[in-house]
């Protein structure tokens, strides 16, 4: 795609554009960052399909020229572009943690679109996101930053390495690395007479009184905790656990 610099006044806003953008914030961004991406303009009519508010902000700042990318779309496709450009933005969400981190190291908030008032709200949302995250759905590897933190602060990774779907023989017990709510097919056949169901077992679970007296079906979706359970069991009983599948 070729980018061309054209006169701001030579372009037309899309008629009936339903989007209401924050022109003031965009103007503040232009003052700090410049116009960092071209707007999209229908070649035949010089009508703006994407970037109407950037164009308005440029005008409000008295800019003479602006970079554009020409679109050869017909009117029907042009209408769809206007709609989808807004709709896909609306459907985007945030990882509030990542946003918090991205903002944290800036000296000031000029040109970011965020204010000091927003920071506390973002931090709060990041915190709430954590509260709502179910650990069983989160077996992703820690980031480098987390690993650095973890190496100094928390109990290290377990010796036993577990993977989703594995079945381990742990003494008289069975450990399945699987989700509780929607992966019944991985463990329900093991829940036979006399076996007690033990979801989300913590690492010392096989050392408990109930584990001494009763064979358990241990179902732990989290590989970190499952690995530590195997470590504790091996340390306490001196017997190796075996991967069955």
């Amino acid at each position, binding site marked *: 795609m070729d980018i061309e610099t054209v006169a701001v006044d030579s372009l037309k806003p899309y008629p009936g554009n339903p989007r209401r953008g924050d022109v003031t914030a965009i103007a503040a961004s232009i003052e700090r960052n410049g116009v960092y991406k071209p707007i999209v303009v229908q070649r035949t009519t010089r009508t703006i399909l994407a970037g109407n508010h950037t164009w308005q902000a440029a005008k409000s700042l008295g800019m003479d020229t602006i970079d554009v990318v020409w679109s050869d779309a017909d009117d029907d496709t042009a209408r769809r572009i206007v709609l989808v450009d807004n709709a896909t933005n609306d459907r985007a969400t945030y990882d509030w943690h990542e946003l918090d981190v991205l903002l944290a190291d800036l000296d000031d908030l000029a040109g970011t679109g965020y204010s000091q*008032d927003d920071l506390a709200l973002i931090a709060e949302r990041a*915190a709430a996101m*954590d509260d709502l995250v179910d*650990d069983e759905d989160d077996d992703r590897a820690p980031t480098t930053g987390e690993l650095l*933190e*973890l190496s100094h602060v928390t*109990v290290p990774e377990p010796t036993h390495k577990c993977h989703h779907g594995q079945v381990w023989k742990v003494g008289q017990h069975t450990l399945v690395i699987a989700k509780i709510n929607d992966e019944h097919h991985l463990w329900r056949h093991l829940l036979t007479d006399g076996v007690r169901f033990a979801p989300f077992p913590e690492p*010392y679970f096989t050392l*408990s009184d109930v584990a001494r007296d009763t064979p358990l079906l241990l179902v732990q979706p989290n590989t970190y905790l499952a690995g530590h359970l195997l470590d504790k069991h091996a340390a306490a009983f001196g017997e190796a656990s075996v991967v069955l599948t």
Partner: protein
Amino acid sequence: MKATSGGTFDPSASPLYFIASNPEAVEESQHPHVLVAVNELNGQRQMDVLDRLCDTRTVLLDSGIFNLAMGHAKAHGLSMDTALSLHPTEVDGFDALRDRYYRIVTEYADRLWGVIELDQGGAKVKPETRAMIEKDTGIVPMPVYHPLNDGWDYFDTLAQGYDRICFGNLVKAAPPTRLRLMHTAAERARAYPYLWTHFLGVHPNENWLGMNYRGSCDSSSWLTALRWMPSWKAWTMLKMNAHFPPDMWYAAGGVSKGEDVTAATARFTQVTIDALKEDTHPWLARS
């Protein structure tokens, strides 16, 4: 080892989930365990609510210093971390908050479940502030430990010195880090069998419940559904059970019915915890 203040603390009643919010909101709920902060108790109406809460619920009192430090950060353009590292006396409004904190803890300590210290200024300053509180009021607040800032030596110092501590930093940690911190806390707590660990800003979940330590947690996320529309979800029995479509979202200012729903789900969370305790928790069943 000092016993932290709080006349209604029962060391055998573990685990507990405290719902946190302003006094009126937690009173609206039927939840038995509530956390309120000194900065929210700023008038006679709120103090009347505190009186009623103390008569019928277990109440954990937070100091409100975090809110004050965040206000200071905003007023002076400081980062959150910088604001939290300031000496308390450098934070705007600290004297007024401390005086109010003193008045409330002195009058209510016997009717509260616990009192959280004025947690401001890092591991070097906090012991001084705590000593000042103990000297000035005769109250022993629950000290706050921040694993990512304070170091494990400080944890051991606190665990040896107090029957209850608060454990912070979890709300800003990513989920895998949170899980590892909780596991590590459980490992550390094994050396201190009397220790009660209160996790700040943590909503109950299965792994927290399963850990072998005595303790509690609090969160304001029982209200999350009402705060941020894209998060409109309902939780109960420790599980999310619904995403509500936009046409079921409550309009701003019209949230009382939504509060009822979320308060009920929070109540059921504690009911679930109690049922687990009675029924399936191997460690607690043994004790």
